[in-house]
């Protein structure tokens, strides 16, 4: 039985993993870099070891140092969280070699799923649908036309040697096929000296829908239904929800079976996620597998009622899964948003800095997974995510209302955050109606602009508050003088302030 787990990560996920360990009576070991001495995971853990300078290449990615701490602390297992070493087959192999349990999949599964071409071939062999397309470059018009007709329109033609949009053509109508192939080939020839092209099915309004799977070391695999992750900005997920608003029970079952088949094809054990690209007609295609815990795993935990980290630990411990597919059900609706230290009104510039004040939203149906606290300085070296806000309600509509209520009460000062931007997303009609795909953010820019929520009166209140703070500050510095005489004694103030840095 696993008795002590080293968590090779930081931030909210390290704390989240440690919470489940604590519930299981397992001791936890934190590792930390230079700038993370005061980070919550160091405070929460039973033990903590320093592993190097701030840049992750010198600390959280140093397999040797982490293994050394595992040995030193007597940890019998390592949980990698997400990011850092979580999808590193060499680390999984190192653990195997050193006799420390890696809480994650086998090196073979990581390797196979980590390489896009191998993964695609493996999925085809396992009968899991992939985005239709050619695997070899096409060198003549006739073959190209034939393949396009097989795949079905629309398709994307891409130059084999290509890049930067050169030699790329989107074909939607049959009568355009010949022209498009010819012009793509000649453009490719001119640009790259090679007229070979690839052809791939074009998904015009793609949805990103993923399935959570759990597999044990005895060959059992189950899925825990889908997560809809189509609200993305620059391929970064912003909002995730489950169930997907476009899903039907029939397609859910089919996709679930495909996800289980995909996992079984690589003898998968541990928690993993099969990402699908889905079109408006609910045709679905395997995109890739994430061989680790996802950031958005809590919405599945809430709706299915399973602690995924505990399952990971039990699986790593060699225990068989405690539930069968038919025992798993979805109850209600969950949504997650990610709170980043960034300025949504200024091109999402990261906004590291010291958290001056934080009010966390609480109450019915709200889960808040964070690691920041008042006085904590969000370091500039790592992902600027502060926390994840997860809500649950009986219905999707109620979940949206609840999330708005929670965001309303969530206050952070000292750094800029994505909170106002997230609130705006929840008001976009396409989101409210559940009709959205991965183009959501670019298509709804006009709804996502900063709001003019503050009237003249509200601006006056803002100004008055600052003014009151200012005059009270003066008053405190001049205890012998009544408030109305304030404001004349700048030299005194200056002199006192130098003493007052307390």
């Amino acid at each position, binding site marked *: 039985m696993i008795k002590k787990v080293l968590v090779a990560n930081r931030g909210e996920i390290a704390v989240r993993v440690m919470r489940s360990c604590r519930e299981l009576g397992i001791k936890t070991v934190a590792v930390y870099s230079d700038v993370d001495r005061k980070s919550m995971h160091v405070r929460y853990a039973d033990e903590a070891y320093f592993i190097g300078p701030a840049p992750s290449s010198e600390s959280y990615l140093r397999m040797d140092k982490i293994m050394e701490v595992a040995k030193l602390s007597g940890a019998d297992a390592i949980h990698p969280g997400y990011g850092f070493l979580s999808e590193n087959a060499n680390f999984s192999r190192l653990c195997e070699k050193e006799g420390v349990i890696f809480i994650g999949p086998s090196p073979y599964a990581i390797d196979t799923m980590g390489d896009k071409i191998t993964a695609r071939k493996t999925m085809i062999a396992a009968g899991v649908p992939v985005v239709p397309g050619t695997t070899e470059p096409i060198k003549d018009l006739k073959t190209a036309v034939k393949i396009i007709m097989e795949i079905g329109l629309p398709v994307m033609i891409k130059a084999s040697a290509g890049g930067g949009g050169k030699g790329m053509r989107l074909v939607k109508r049959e009568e355009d096929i010949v022209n498009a192939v010819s012009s793509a080939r000649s453009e490719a020839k001119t640009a790259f000296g090679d007229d070979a092209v690839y052809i791939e099915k074009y998904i015009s309004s793609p949805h990103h829908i993923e399935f959570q799977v759990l597999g044990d070391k005895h060959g059992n695999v189950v899925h825990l239904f889908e997560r809809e992750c189509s609200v993305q900005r620059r391929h970064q997920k912003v909002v995730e929800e489950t169930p997907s608003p476009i899903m039907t029970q029939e397609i859910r079952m089919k996709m679930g079976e495909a996800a289980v088949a995909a996992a079984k094809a690589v003898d998968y054990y541990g928690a993993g996620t099969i990402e699908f690209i889905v079109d408006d007609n609910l045709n679905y295609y395997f995109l890739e597998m994430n061989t680790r815990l996802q950031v958005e795993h809590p919405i599945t935990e809430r709706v299915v009622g399973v602690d995924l980290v505990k399952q990971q630990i039990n699986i790593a411990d060699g225990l068989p899964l405690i539930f069968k597919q038919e025992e798993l059900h979805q109850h209600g609706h969950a949504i997650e948003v990610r709170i980043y*230290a960034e300025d949504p009104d200024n091109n999402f*510039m*990261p*906004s*590291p*800095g010291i958290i*001056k*004040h934080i*009010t966390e939203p609480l109450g019915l149906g709200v889960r808040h997974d964070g690691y920041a606290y008042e006085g904590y300085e969000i370091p*500039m*070296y*790592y*992902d*600027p995510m502060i926390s994840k806000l997860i809500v649950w309600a009986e219905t999707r509509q109620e979940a949206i209302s609840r999330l708005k209520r929670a965001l*309303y009460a969530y*206050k952070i*000062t*000292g750094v*800029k955050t994505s909170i*106002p931007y997230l*609130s705006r997303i929840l008001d976009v009609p396409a989101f409210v109606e559940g009709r959205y795909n991965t183009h959501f953010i670019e298509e709804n820019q006009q709804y996502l602009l*900063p*709001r*003019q*929520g*503050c009237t003249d*009166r*509200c*601006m*006056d*209140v*803002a*100004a*008055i*508050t*600052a*003014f*009151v*703070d*200012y*005059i*009270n*500050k003066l008053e405190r510095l001049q205890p012998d003088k009544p*408030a*109305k005489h304030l*404001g004349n004694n*700048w030299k005194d*103030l200056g002199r006192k*302030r130098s003493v007052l840095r307390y």
Partner: protein
Amino acid sequence: MSYEIKINNRLSTIELLRKDGSNYQIAIDNKVYELDVAEVENGVYSILLDNISFNVELVEGRNSKSYIVNTLYETFGVEIIDAEAKYLMSRRKDEGEDTNVIVSPMPGKVVKILCNEGDHVKAGDTVIIVSAMKMESEYKVKQDRIIKRILVKEGDTVKGDQPMVVIE
């Protein structure tokens, strides 16, 4: 006595007329407000105005007279302008704007410096690259300029608002 107060770009006059415990009578640009202003947490205020409950958070800015103010939906820069501030502002104007400084807007690390002191750079040229939180930001000049001084070196950690390159 009355002060000038700048809320983003709006300039107003503000005056405390009366104070009684947490009740304030304050005039802004001749509008008179009666409010109950209570600091509930450090930098967090609860304001009641005609029984409407406002929540306002303050963070002190560059100095004790400047604030970043959060209301429900927006963030404002607020600056209280007293005699001292007015004096400093007038002096700053006298110095003119013939020097210019590229300043890091946030804490980060200098990844690359693409110029040397004395270089003539062209409008749009990238002068320095700073990385923070997995993102690299390029700082360019907007007009043809001369690099006067470089205050940092590659690999340096910079703070928010730290001058990095002086251009002419």
